[in-house]
């Protein structure tokens, strides 16, 4: 019996887990996938937004500003990358500039520090490669970038080091309230917990319904991205935005913390919660949108593309509230969800306190995630040539909380396969290492769990 079950191991669920692991509570995080961070948390822009965008007084606004202030320290504690590169919202017309002026006012009211509306000259100084047609911008120096899945993996790893349990491939199928606890079942297993935190992303509405709450609906909104070679990571110094619309913040151009250049996302409402395909039209939109802001983007240097699905609620703001007995919904966490995640965690802990959960702080909470040494010169055999990843790092990733059990999980933890050759050289070696370390057959190793096997059997037709 656990005190708290968290459904969903995305950045929100794991930040809550980490926060709760500071108290004397038994916590278990459940996720239907074969790894953490498999939903929107691995397919977003990685921006820690300054917080001028959301409506004043909304949860989005309050928690964004608060969360973004907390992020630097958390990334230091977790030893993950963080870069305070600043954001620019570019204006091309007078209309844009008045929208920018509104954003400025909103930002100030939301408590964002350091905001400035700047002219073309200052913009050119800050960002030499920006389009000649730009006439001004909103400059938000507190904007930052992180690697969202690196952060998610580190946060849950730290929570696990502090006693939290993680159950992967646990797809919640039914939730039953018995006396004073819940029985949560997948096809294979049942677990018990006194309180449930529903952070199930795209499926938060379905999970809520299992507990008898049908007060909201989630629909997917697809965003497609392109990633360019690290050679062009410094094409822009700041994260470049356009003036936002109803559908979102628009197509941005930003370096990633790993030094690549990221373009995207698009914004398209779709029906299928499992449709993560990229499309010709979508990728074309990304290219045109990005070129408008930074005309010199070398499209020949695209190394990959991907898409993510935002979980959009029908309510307009984050849904973070008590629902049925001992049940909290955290739903509709689209942008600025990543930025807000640490603040969402604090908010949820407060709610739990109000609901009667005894919050006795642990004396031995370890906030710092120890990572294996960053000194690459000690690592021996190199497996991923493009990113210089050693066998040692890959083996560590397989055995460190949360353990990597497939090729994509290794990739997210080590970056092996994320370079120019996109795994062409290293992937067979990673499969070999996984088979060896997990003591499974080579042909059982998957790309991301389930039936995504890399190979289908031995040659010579012998199984």
């Amino acid at each position, binding site marked *: 019996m656990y005190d708290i079950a968290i459904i969903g191991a995305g950045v929100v669920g794991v930040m809550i887990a980490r926060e709760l692991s500071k108290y004397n509570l038994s916590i278990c995080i459940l996720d239907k996938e074969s790894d953490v961070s498999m939903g929107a948390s691995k397919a977003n822009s990685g921006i820690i937004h300054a917080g001028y965008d959301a409506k004043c007084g909304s949860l989005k606004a309050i928690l964004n500003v608060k969360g973004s202030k907390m992020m630097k320290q958390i990334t230091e504690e977790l030893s993950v990358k963080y870069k305070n590169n600043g954001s620019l919202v570019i204006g091309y017309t007078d209309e844009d500039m008045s929208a920018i002026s509104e954003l400025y006012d909103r930002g100030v009211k939301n408590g964002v520090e350091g905001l400035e509306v700047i002219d073309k000259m200052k913009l050119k100084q800050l960002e030499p490669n920006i389009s000649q047609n730009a006439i001004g911008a909103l400059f938000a120096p507190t904007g930052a970038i992180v690697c969202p899945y690196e952060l998610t993996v580190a946060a849950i790893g730290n929570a696990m080091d502090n006693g939290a349990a993680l159950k992967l491939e646990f797809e919640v199928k039914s939730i039953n309230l018995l006396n004073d606890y819940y029985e949560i079942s997948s096809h294979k297993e049942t677990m018990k917990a006194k309180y449930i935190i529903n952070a199930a992303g795209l499926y938060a509405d379905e999970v809520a319904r299992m507990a008898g709450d049908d007060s909201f609906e989630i629909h997917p909104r697809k965003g497609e991205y392109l990633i360019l070679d690290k050679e062009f990571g410094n094409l822009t110094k700041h994260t470049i935005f356009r003036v936002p619309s109803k559908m979102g913040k628009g197509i941005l151009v930003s370096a990633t913390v790993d030094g690549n250049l990221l373009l995207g996302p698009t914004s398209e409402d779709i029906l299928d919660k499992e449709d993560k*395909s990229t499309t010709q039209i979508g990728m074309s939109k990304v290219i045109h949108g990005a070129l408008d802001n930074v005309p010199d983007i070398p499209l020949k240097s695209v190394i990959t593309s991907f898409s993510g699905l935002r979980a959009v609620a029908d309510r307009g703001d984050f849904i973070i509230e008590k629902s049925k007995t001992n049940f909290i919904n955290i739903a509709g966490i689209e942008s600025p969800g990543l930025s807000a995640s640490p603040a969402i965690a604090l908010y949820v802990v407060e709610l739990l306190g109000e609901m009667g959960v005894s919050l006795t702080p642990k004396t031995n909470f370890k906030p710092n995630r120890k990572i294996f040494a960053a000194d690459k010169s000690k690592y021996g*055999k190199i497996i991923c040539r493009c990113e210089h990843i050693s066998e040692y790092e890959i083996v560590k990733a397989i055995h460190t909380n949360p353990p990597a059990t497939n090729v994509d999980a290794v990739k997210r933890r080590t970056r092996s396969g994320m370079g120019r050759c996109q795994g*062409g050289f290293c992937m067979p070696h990673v499969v*070999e290492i996984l088979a060896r370390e997990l003591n499974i057959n080579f042909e059982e190793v*998957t790309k991301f769990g389930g039936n*995504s096997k*890399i190979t289908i059997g031995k040659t010579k037709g012998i199984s």
Partner: protein
Amino acid sequence: MKKIDLVIIGGGPAGMAAAVSAYNNGIKDILILEREESLGGILQQCIHNGFGLHKFKEELTGPEYAWKYEKQVFDLKIPFRLNAMVMNISADKQVTFACEQGESQTVQAKAIILAMGCRERSRGALNIAGTRPAGIYTAGTAQKFVNIMGYMPGKRIVILGSGDIGLIMARRMTIEGAKVEAVCEIAPYSGGLTRNIVQCLNDFDIPLKLSHTVVDIHGKERVTGVTIARVDQNRKPISGTEEYFACDTLLLSVGLIPENELAKSAGIALDKVTGGAVVDQNRETSKSGIFACGNVLHVHDLVDFVSEEAELAGHSAAKYILESDKQAEKEITFQLTENISYIVPQMLHSVQNDVIVYFRVANIFKNVIIEVRDDEKVLYKKNIKKAAPGEMECIKLNKEILRDIRGNKIYVELKQR
């Protein structure tokens, strides 16, 4: 810091041939650094034949060709390290490599030969829309699974790209029990040797769809199919021509890119078209004492020419190490007509021997003349019946002609007859 006369990066056919050549030209203090578990490079997984017809007058498989050089390296006791990945080369020839035993090492070389080969273009670089399931591999990666590790990447295959690697894998997968549904090629002609069309596709009734490309990939966890479409003369998909092919694997054979990250880190000038270093007839790059040969310099069709080029580089590196005085050299650059994609070497310095230049044409041409001239006169002329981008051409320019050049440009022109 340990000093080594000649460091060779890559122990494949280029690296080994360069090493043997340097040895035979007087350099004994050599170190070959190879990232894989054995020498031989990509040849170890190229188990098909067709190698060595020019060099050894016999038709060898990849591993047999590799052995011809491995044996020489072993017999001459040329030092090499396996599982050793070079991480960096500095402009002043310090080479840092990671090795199995733990800490990385840095050595000071007098000369370096770059022989790192090339990598394959990936799905991501092509922007193919669709899902990202398991089952999408470059042909070389699939070849490694099948021929080295003994595992089948899939059972029902579509191949994009009709260059030799794609064709060879079509046959290889078929004889190991897979069904190859089609080979698609975006160009209106195949990039591979005609003999491979016959013995890899025709022999197995595998359809070749020219002027087609893959526009969508389907499947959630594993590929379930691809959509292909015909393309127009600008290689853009034509709406309405889409065709679905059920399959569990998509193999990509869509281009090789010389692996020059180390060259970039050393500040070596690269040719935008080849992706490899700019070199002179000695295969010396823009950095004195750093040479390049093989696929890292420009993608070759035949390994026989790789060996030839590597021998030249090895000889040049040996000369560089042994000769102390380096005089100022007259530099002559090549100028090409637009219908020639590239030429290697891109320049000449103080010609002392005959020079073989290698070039590729930009399109398929029939009945053309290659004319080489300087500012005043024609130096060389050759009729070519058929030239294609997939078949590298070479011509030999005599040292007497080259020493007599007026001006510092040589023009290489492709003209219709």
